[in-house]
């Protein structure tokens, strides 16, 4: 069965530092990929998604992610984080385009002002 691994459980950064959160899924084929964010006390929100085409996708709030098919990876990046980016970030994959999202365990990001 498909699975998703997020490499970092907790990441602590200072404001203006660059961010990269790792995400790998277990096997290939046609996949749809997602990053969700959960700000403290709020519900899960879609940050960005990849279905096909340009492997570099841009999302909201300056986030982007790169799909590397050969590495089964979909890493999330942001050039300069802000205190307001403090949140939990979840990577997810849908390998049958039917809406059964498989989530990673999440990465908690803490940004120090």
């Amino acid at each position, binding site marked *: *069965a498909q699975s*998703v691994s997020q490499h970092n459980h907790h990441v602590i950064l200072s404001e203006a530092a660059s961010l990269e959160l790792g995400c790998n899924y277990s096997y290939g084929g046609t996949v*749809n990929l*997602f990053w*969700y964010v959960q700000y403290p006390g*709020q*519900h*899960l*929100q*879609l940050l960005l*998604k990849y279905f096909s085409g340009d492997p570099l996708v841009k999302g909201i709030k300056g986030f982007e992610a790169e799909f590397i098919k050969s590495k089964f990876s979909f890493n999330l990046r942001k050039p300069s984080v802000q205190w307001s980016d403090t949140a939990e970030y*979840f990577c*997810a994959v*849908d390998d049958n*385009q*039917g*809406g*059964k*999202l*498989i*989530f*990673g*365990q*999440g990465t908690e990001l803490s940004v120090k002002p």
Partner: protein
Amino acid sequence: DAGVTQSPTHLIKTRGQQVTLRCSPKSGHDTVSWYQQALGQGPQFIFQYYEEEERQRGNFPDRFSGHQFPNYSSELNVNALLLGDSALYLCASSYKLAKNIQYFGAGTRLSVL
């Protein structure tokens, strides 16, 4: 435009009891998916409903059942509660032609004592 609404927000039950959680999808959405999120973990897919039928199911026992009503709202029922059922239960809604673009509710926090 109302987003995904779930009720109740918190619930406390004892082992062996039964519980019903409710979800109203975002306006214009006709598909509802349910997820279980244990503490410190990513959401796990339970099942998905559209056109009032269960369409996909994750690796959850038959104690977990659901229903979708003609107005697209949905219920999640859990029978014979176990301590391990304590979790945040998330409802996500989508449109049938884009099932994996899902909008999440705030969840119902279930505690089983």
